[in-house]
């Protein structure tokens, strides 16, 4: 789910950098408001490295295998650090593996990072619901929504951006059908990532609940 170098015109890539600059500024501003902002840096850095490695996991889904995005999980675990962490992770993917690109780093950070921030806010709302329902079940449901919505928003942003930028007016109808078709074809990935995020979050809640609570 990455936009490669050279795929989109430069003005679009530069706009991506501008909006990513704003999103990064917003995230860093929220981080700096914390009582000990530097405390989260080693945690976010090592978890970024762990997510970078974990993103190589493929889940068998006959006849193929699916590659996880993990932005929902990043939002849940890292909070406002998720956006800088995604930026750093995407930078390494671009320069080390050629996955994504340097010129499109801003765009990729947007399509993966904005859903992570959204999911962070969504997951933090679980504390209100937990007062009335079972804590584990509530966390599981919110974790599923976080994982699935993280992918869903990324898919919509990705295909919306690529097809609308590469396409022209005369193909507008067929492009709309193509976008819809591609979004629908990603529904299994959304469900899979939702289940995966639920398992990971419930595991962490049992073993190290601080990882889910001190996330800015």
């Amino acid at each position: 789910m990455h936009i490669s170098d050279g795929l989109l015109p430069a003005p679009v890539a530069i706009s991506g950098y501008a909006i990513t600059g704003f999103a990064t500024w917003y995230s860093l501003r929220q981080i700096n408001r914390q009582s000990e902002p530097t405390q989260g840096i080693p945690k976010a850095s090592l978890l970024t490295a762990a997510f970078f490695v974990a993103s190589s996991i493929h889940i068998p889904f006959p006849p193929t295998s699916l590659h996880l995005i993990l932005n929902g999980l990043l939002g849940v675990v890292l909070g406002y650090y998720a956006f800088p962490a995604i930026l750093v992770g995407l930078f390494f993917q671009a320069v080390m593996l050629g996955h994504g690109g340097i010129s499109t780093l801003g765009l990729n950070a947007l399509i993966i990072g904005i859903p992570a921030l959204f999911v962070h806010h969504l997951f933090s709302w679980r504390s209100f619901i937990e007062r009335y329902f079972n804590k584990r079940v509530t966390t599981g449901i919110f974790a599923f929504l976080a994982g699935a919505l993280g992918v869903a928003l990324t898919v919509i942003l990705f295909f919306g951006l690529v097809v609308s930028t590469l396409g022209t007016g005369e193909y507008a109808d067929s492009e709309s059908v193509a976008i819809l078709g591609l979004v629908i074809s990603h529904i299994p990935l959304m469900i899979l990532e939702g289940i995966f995020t639920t398992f990971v979050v419930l595991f962490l809640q049992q073993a190290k609940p601080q990882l889910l609570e001190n996330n800015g």
Partner: protein
Amino acid sequence: MADKFALDKYADKDSLIHSWHPKCKIIGISLLIFSFAFIQDISLIPVMLGITFIFYSISKLPLSFLVSRLRYPGLFLLGMIILLPFTRGENIIWQWSFLKLREEGTLLVLVIISRFFSIFTMGLVMFGTAPFMTTIQSMRQLGLSRVIADMLILSYRYIYQIFVDFSQMQQAMKVRGYTTKKQSNPKYNISLFRHISVLAAVTASLLLQSYEQSERVYAAMRLRGYGDLTTSIIKPNTIDDKQTKNTSLSLLGLFGTVIIAVSLFFWQVI
């Protein structure tokens, strides 16, 4: 795959690009990268590829360094653009049954592939010809946020180690009989739900290990004075003498790349 994480393994080579001051190199090559991204005219493709070839040759980076990294994105890009020559445009240049190869789509694919190759190669020249710490220090001096710079350094430092931990976990799973491949005997195949459960447990363990290690790292950093927003893990100066002595040559190189980048931009616009 672990070898791919070593981005600066050829940073100690001796070439003009290696002795180019990192700040000038980052500005110059970044400008070239964005001027390449502007290219849409097919006649500029040989110029762009030529510039890329010259830079990579001067950098003395081995061809294998580039080729090993091109394999994966090559396949990814192939998947992304395989349909364009058959769906975009009206001028048909080749037809077989219902398959129609169209001129506009083919040219667009050629431009996309060339831009991708040139930008990716220039990125390797930028980050592969200086120690990673030096590059990040220069980016910090050019205005990169302290938090992002620290995260880049720390993540880069631990990626290899975490990858080794992950490989050991995978090895342990294999020893216990876990595989994602389909077995000939159906009774040994596990359900998709079970696969997700196992892989989620591995991911959670990896996150736990990293979190616990980050607490030890933070404690060690605090002992060395890290703890407020004015301190950084980046050392004051890691740029070697060779690079500082070549200031005039570095500025000349920067001037040259700015001229090339601006010329490409105006050639494209006009």
